[in-house]
Structure formats: structure tokens, C-alpha cells
């Protein structure tokens, strides 16, 4: 194996599992330490720079960082990264944060950008371009900003005040908003001579279910996302006593829990597939179940049963999942009597699609498979160089943090494009690597590894919260619990750096390492080396850090990054300081930086 090139910023980036997994690459351990220090405003700003909506995301993020968290590989549960983010947002000093917002130049740079859609993707583009002097017009068909964060995510998960504050941090930069404005022609926008146009219109079309009875039952059959938004904007205030929610994703979870709050007595979630394959996040399912909502698996809808022009029930076929050799699933009928479930209303929450009926097809903007625009996945530019896509509009429905990550990259592209530069030349990330050594046994980070298990977030009482659609269910960590949870973080950004020239091969690091990360042996291929290390190295997703072969014995040092606790003991035990713990900060470079 070749020696590791630690100068490549992606090498150490990958070691910070949470940050690497975060689409926006938020420096997680950095803000977790700030939370532990009680520096909530600083922690908030670290987040805000990367993910723009810390208060929103601290409640609603899909949290791809948590399954990636190293802690989950040495014990049962990862660090509660997402809920710690909320601790920063809940405890920040609002006045200080307002004062720390970027300055917006009074003199504009003369360039105009249109943003279509007011969701997190568009708002992020605005957040990055406004400080650079751009003039921005934002169009959205809703009465106010936030996109799906406002229309879809129910208030019992995301209070309006939290959303408003973070949407306004951006709109208050001087974005010219055109709310209640549905853009029905891209041509008309291009005609306004914008220097660039961003399409952040999301995936706004909910899938329908075309089975017998659909038309006859129309009055009581709702498309999930349309229904949620009509609840959010208070056009819908109640629902029948018995409700069926079709679908097993997060939209279904929001529909069923919202139904409970709009007067339903019994709500059932009914899924075609086995329960284990439900798309909803485990914690969303848990929250729904806590509210007494049952989930039925392996039921394929057959028919809406309508009596006297009124929906009265639904019929389902019971199936089982069968997998072929390639793992492809098919649902096979058990051939049993259909199941009849009574209902007054049905919410169909079986997925969403993109839809661009408002984009003319003669603008040099090519559409490809599934009638999706052809968008470059790095630059987010369409085949019409002036038009960029991002968020759910670019590649289909994802989540807020992905929309934010796209937004940052789009801003970079638009800034390059307008300045006549090559959008394919992406700026390198900003990285710093600084020794944390303070003394023989002292580091400037808390290197102790605590044994606490993950703290649970307290919830409002179910009976109370079911009565009030606006009452937030999760209460967040208090400061003490926030501190304790923050201490669980292993500081994966405190990197272990090895200097061959200093090593005398005394084995002290090998002997002390609690998780057997380090081995000195003769070099070989990666496959071969993985069989010869101090402990099994079966996690191929994690890299081996390899020294060069200049050690006294001609062997190489190999460190399996997999379960390193970043405890610093190797460096403390090293008599010659061949190991050092250095803080690696990785910033995705933003537009204009």
C-alpha cells in the first residue's frame, strides 16, 4: 500500500465521520465543543455558516450524520448531534446573532439574480449572494417564505417562531420577495434580463392513487402534501373521526399525527410493504406510535368504498414480500379475503414528484429521463447556462440539509458564472490543522472519553400535545443535559498525525491504544494488511493511515481509523512526540471566499 497523503484535505475530512456525512459538511465536533463550553452563540454561528437553519434543522434534520457517527461503532448509540444543534439554537443570544449577520453592501454590484421558489435551497443561495452585493428577487406561490419547511413540516415539530427567525435572517438582508406569485413561465423570468436564474421549486406534486372509487370519494380523499399545506395555512381545520393514511414515509407520519390533532379518534397508517422497509425515519415512526397510531404492513390498497356518495371504507389485499436472487422485491398476494377498513377520510402519502409544466421546452434547457431537467451534479447548471437548479427541484425529493448544500454550491456557480469564470473550477475547501498539545497529558480539547449512554430528549405529554396542533412535542435538552450529551462526542476532528522521522518503534502507542488501532508491520497490499492488524479491520469504508517505509526497522505504521476514540493516549505515550493530536477544521468554500 502507498503511504497516506495526509495533505489531501479529503483524507482527514473522512475521519470526521459526522461532518463528512453531512451534505453541507457542518463542522460538527467544533460546534459540539462550543456547546459544552456554554458558548451557544458561537456554536450557532458555526452551524449557521454551514447549514443556515440550525434551529429548524436541530428539530427536523434527517441527520445523516448520526448513523455515520463513530460513537455508534463503539457503543449502541451515536451522539445526539441533531438535538445538540437545537441546544445551540435555543440558547443563543438573539441580539448577538443579529449583530453577527453578514454586512450587506449598500452599493450593489449591479448584478441581478432571480430565485424561483422560497424553500431552503433558494434561501441559501440568497444567504450566500446577498453579502456579495447581488440584487435578488425571490418568487414563491406561498404567502410567505420557507417553502416546504413552512407548508409541510407541522408546527408540532417545528414552531413557526423558529422558522420565521431563520427565514428572516435571510430575507432581512434585503431580498426582494414576490410572494403569492406562481411563476407560470420561465421565459417570462428570463425576459426580465436577470444575470442568472435559480430554480428551487422543490418537488411539489404529490402522487395520487388511481384505484376504483377514487373519483367518487374525492371529497374525503386528500393528497398528503396538499392537505398538510392546507392545514399549515389554516384552510383546513378538521378531519373525520376515522382516518386512513396510506404510505410509510415521513409525509405519512406527518399526516397521521396532524390528523390526530384535527379531531380524528382513530388513525391508521397502512403500508404496502413490510414494516421494516418503511421509508420514514425510525424516530418519526416512534413519535407517531407514542401518540397511539398503529401501523399495518403488507396491505395493498384495492378500492375506495363509497356508499351514498360518501367514502366509508377502504379495501386492501394482504400480501407478502418475496425477494428474487438480485434482492428485488415483489409483493405477492396471499390470496385471502380482502380486508375492509372503515374510514371517513384518507390521506394519500405515497410520494412526491417534480413537475415543471411552467418551463417552456424551447429555452435551450434540456430535459432527460422522467422529464427531469438535465442538471450538472457538481455545478448545478442546466443546459441553459444562465439557469441553475437546486434542492428537490434538481434531482428529486431529498431533505432540507441537502437543499442547503446544493444552495451553497449554486451560489458558488452563479458567482463564478456572472464573473465570467469557469463554473467547473470549484474552489478548494478551507482547511487548517493545528496541534492541540498543551502539556504532557493535556490537550486543548477534552480528550477524556465518557461512558454515558445517549440522553433521551424529553417530550411534551401526549394528551396535551394532541389537543394543540401548534404545541411542540419535543422539548429539547436543557443546558445540563446538553453538556452531558456534548461530552459524548469523541472529537473526531482531533486528528492523529504521525511523523516517521521521530518514531523509535518502542510500541508504546500500540500498547496503550484502547481500541487497537495501531500496528507496525511489513507493508503489503491493503487486503493483506487488513488481515494482519492488531484488531480485525473489517470496516472497508474506513481508511488505513499508512506511514512511509523510513522507520528504523523498515516496517510501516498502519492506523485503522475505524474505531479510533481520539483519546490522544497514543500521543501522550509517545516518548518522542511522533504522534500529535491536531485539530482539523474543514470548511466548504462559499461563494466569493
Amino acid at each position, binding site marked *: 500500500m502507498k503511504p497516506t497523503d495526509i495533505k489531501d484535505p479529503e483524507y482527514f475530512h473522512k475521519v470526521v465521520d459526522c461532518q463528512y456525512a453531512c451534505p453541507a459538511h457542518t463542522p460538527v465536533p467544533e460546534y459540539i465543543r462550543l456547546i459544552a463550553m456554554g458558548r451557544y452563540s458561537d456554536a450557532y454561528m458555526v452551524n449557521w455558516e454551514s447549514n443556515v437553519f440550525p434551529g429548524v434543522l436541530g428539530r427536523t434534520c434527517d441527520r445523516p450524520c448520526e448513523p455515520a457517527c463513530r460513537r455508534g461503532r463503539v457503543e449502541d448509540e451515536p451522539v445526539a448531534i441533531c438535538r445538540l444543534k437545537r441546544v445551540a439554537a435555543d440558547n443563543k443570544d438573539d441580539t448577538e446573532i443579529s449583530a453577527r449577520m453578514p454586512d450587506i453592501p449598500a452599493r450593489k454590484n449591479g448584478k441581478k439574480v432571480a430565485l424561483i421558489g422560497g424553500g431552503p435551497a433558494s434561501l441559501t443561495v440568497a444567504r450566500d449572494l446577498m453579502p456579495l452585493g447581488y440584487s435578488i428577487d425571490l418568487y414563491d406561490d406561498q404567502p410567505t417564505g420557507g417553502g416546504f419547511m413552512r407548508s409541510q413540516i407541522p408546527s408540532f415539530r417545528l414552531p413557526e417562531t423558529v422558522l420565521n427567525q431563520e427565514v428572516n435572517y435571510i430575507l432581512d438582508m434585503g431580498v426582494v420577495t414576490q410572494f403569492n406569485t406562481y411563476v407560470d413561465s420561465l421565459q417570462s423570468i428570463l425576459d426580465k434580463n436577470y444575470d442568472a436564474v435559480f430554480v428551487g421549486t422543490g418537488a411539489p406534486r404529490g402522487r395520487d392513487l388511481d384505484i376504483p372509487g377514487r373519483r367518487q370519494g374525492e371529497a374525503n380523499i386528500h393528497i398528503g402534501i396538499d392537505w398538510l399545506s392546507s392545514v399549515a395555512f389554516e384552510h383546513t381545520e378538521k378531519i373525520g373521526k376515522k382516518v386512513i393514511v396510506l404510505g410509510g414515509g415521513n409525509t405519512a407520519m406527518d399526516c397521521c399525527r396532524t390528523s390526530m390533532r384535527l379531531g380524528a379518534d382513530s388513525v391508521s397508517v397502512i403500508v404496502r410493504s413490510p414494516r421494516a422497509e418503511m421509508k420514514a425515519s425510525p424516530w418519526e415512526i416512534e413519535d407517531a406510535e407514542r401518540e397511539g397510531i398503529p401501523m399495518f404492513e403488507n396491505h395493498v390498497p384495492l378500492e375506495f368504498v363509497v356508499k351514498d356518495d360518501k367514502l366509508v371504507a377502504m379495501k386492501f389485499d394482504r400480501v407478502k414480500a418475496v425477494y428474487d436472487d438480485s434482492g428485488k422485491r415483489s409483493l405477492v398476494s396471499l390470496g385471502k379475503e380482502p380486508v375492509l377498513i372503515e374510514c371517513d377520510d384518507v390521506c394519500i402519502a405515497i410520494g412526491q414528484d417534480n413537475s415543471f409544466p411552467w418551463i417552456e421546452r424551447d429555452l435551450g434547457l434540456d430535459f432527460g429521463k422522467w422529464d427531469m431537467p438535465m442538471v450538472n451534479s457538481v455545478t448545478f447548471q442546466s443546459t441553459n447556462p444562465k439557469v441553475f437548479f437546486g434542492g428537490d427541484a434538481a434531482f428529486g425529493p431529498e431533505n432540507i440539509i441537502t437543499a442547503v448544500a446544493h444552495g451553497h454550491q449554486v451560489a458558488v456557480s452563479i458567482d463564478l458564472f456572472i464573473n465570467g469564470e469557469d463554473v467547473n473550477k470549484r474552489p478548494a475547501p478551507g482547511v487548517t490543522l493545528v496541534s492541540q498539545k498543551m502539556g504532557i497529558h493535556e490537550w486543548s480539547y477534552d480528550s477524556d*472519553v465518557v461512558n454515558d449512554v445517549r440522553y433521551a430528549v424529553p417530550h411534551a405529554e401526549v394528551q396535551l400535545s394532541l389537543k394543540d396542533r401548534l404545541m411542540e412535542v419535543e422539548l429539547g435538552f436543557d443546558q445540563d443535559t446538553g453538556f452531558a450529551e456534548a461530552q459524548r462526542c469523541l472529537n473526531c476532528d482531533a486528528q492523529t498525525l504521525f511523523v516517521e522521522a521521530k518514531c523509535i518503534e518502542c510500541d508504546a502507542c500500540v500498547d496503550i491504544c484502547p481500541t487497537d488501532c495501531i500496528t507496525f508491520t511489513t507493508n503489503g497490499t491493503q487486503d493483506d494488511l487488513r488481515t494482519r492488524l492488531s484488531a480485525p479491520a473489517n470496516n472497508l469504508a474506513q481508511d488505513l493511515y499508512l506511514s512511509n517505509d523510513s522507520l528504523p526497522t523498515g516496517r510501516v505504521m498502519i492506523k485503522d481509523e475505524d474505531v479510533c476514540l481520539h483519546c490522544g493516549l497514543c500521543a501522550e505515550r509517545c516518548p518522542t512526540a511522533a504522534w500529535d493530536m491536531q485539530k482539523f477544521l474543514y470548511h466548504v468554500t462559499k461563494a466569493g471566499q
Partner: protein
Amino acid sequence: MSYIKPAFRHPDLPVNDLGYTKKNYEGAISTLCAGCGHDSISAAIVQAIFELSIAPHQVAKLSGIGCSSKTPTYFLGDSHGFNSVHGRMPSVATGANMANRDMIYVGVSGDGDTASIGMGQFTHAVRRNVNMMYVVENNGCYGLTKGQDSATSDVGSMSKKGEPNPFEAIDLVSVALQLGATFVARSFSGDKEQLIPLIKAAISHQGFAFIDIISPCVTFNNNPGSTKGYEYVRDHLAATGTVDFVPMKEELTTSYQSGTAEEVTLHDGSVVHLYKGDESLDIHNRRSALKLIKDYKAQDKILTGLLYMDADSQDLHETIGTSNKPLRSLTEQDLCPGNKVLQNINDSLR
């Protein structure tokens, strides 16, 4: 700040026959100097005893005084231990061994503890063939008292203080051979591949198993001019061959080419395989070992590896015919067998 070793271990650590992982054989976090060879030896002992699937409570660790003698605190935290007086570990070990022959005795000493103040005790433990492993963590100095030259320091070797040692060194391996030790080896703390199988064989050996382990003192004797520093030792190492230890219960998985390896079967059926590096060594012959040690020394080489063993030796218990049960398991009935037995004894003396 971390003086505490985190509780987490590698999730895929192998388990031994007792269902234990290496963690069950660890001790407290070491307080020795960072980089001290002694810590590597502790790690090797942990690994060896883990691999032998010995229950920690069946082991007694015994030591004298010195950095080396402190190390039993840093391994086998769930075993018995006695940190005795300087140089007196052999008599404590002998006593313990006499009282309970079923335990496994791991004696840890230093070159000062053994070759100076404890020399008299050491020699008697050897000649009595006490059933134990006796390890000397040999750094050529008194580490604990700040690095004075010890009796194993080579003539002319210089510690950090910078003055060449004027005295001839005591070679503990040769002494042990001459006194009749029944298992003699030398190794290096920085060579676990050699050391771990040697420890396993030494522990399995019935009788006095001596290993002289060169173990650099990074703080006082790891400087240019010292013959016990990492660099010097690495540059001057030579090995009798490589050793492989196969416990009795284990199937031979590797096929050993006959001729290249010598097999020695231990009392419990375990097998020590020696792949000879030097064909002239006869590990059943003390004189062969003594000669080879001298020859290598003359070439400025430090000969390591298994040097001598007598798998059929008679340990102290057999020699003096002690109780075949640990004393603590003797009941009142055993100890006071009654008047009739006394009468028989008296009669036999008449």
C-alpha cells in the same frame, strides 16, 4: 487530560476459550515513562495469557522493586499479586508456590532487582527449579532510582549520565544456565512476535522458566553509547530462530516441514516449534547454549530466542514431595488424620 484509559474497546476483539477478550487481562493504566520497554512486555504478557485462555484468577503476579517490578499493576488486573521487597521476589514466589501448586506464577523483576540486591535469592529459585515464569525486564540500569548503571550494564556502555560503565556485566542468561534453569530464553521488548510465543512456552513449562528481556529505559539509558537502547539493540540482534507455541488442544493448522523445525512437547501436551536460525544450537544442551551466547557476544551480537529447555524437568514440588493439593484445600481431616495415623507413624520410627 487523560490518566484513565477509555472503557471502549475494539468491537470485534477476538474472544478466547473462556469467552474473554484481551480487556479482561488488562490492568491499570501504566504510570511508567512514555515509551518504556517494560510497557511492551506487559502488553505481551496480556496477549500471551489471553491466548492461553488462562483465567485471570488462576495467576499470581510477584515482583520486587523497580520500574519493572511496578508493572504487574499494569496487567492482569483481576489476578493475585504481591509486590515484595527489593530483590526478595524469589523467596515470596517460592513460598507462594509451595503453598499452592495449582496457581500460575508470573515473576517480574528488573536487572537491579535480580542481578544486584536479589542475586542470592534468584540463584536459589533457579537451582530449586521453582515452577514459575521469571522475567527480568533488563534495561541495564536502575530506572526507578534515576538510571544508575546496573550489574547487567555492558563494560563501556554509557547511560544518559555520560560515564562509561567500568565493570564487567553479569549475563543473567548464562548464570541461569549454569545454575540449572530448565527453560532459558532471551528476548527484546520491541519484538512481540518473538516474545509472545516465548512467554506462552515459559508459562506452560513445568519448572523454572527464565526469560531475560532487554527492555530499554527511554529516560535514562536510550542514548547513543548505551548498549541497551532501542537503536543499539535492534542493530545488534540475532535470533536462535523463531518459536511457535501450539497449545495441546489446538489442531496443527500449519504443516511443519520436517527437518527445518524442532518440536518439543511439554508436560501438558503443548508443543514448542523452533525454527532454527542457527543450526549449531542444540536446545537440549546447556553447553551448546552457553557456547553460542559467547560466540555471538564475541561478534558483538545479542543472541535472542529460546536457548535451552528441558521439558521433563522435575520441579521443586516433585523433588521434595510436597502435598499434591494446594494447602488451602487441605481439610481438618487431612491435617489432623487422628490418633491411628499418628500411631502408625510412631510405629514406623521405632
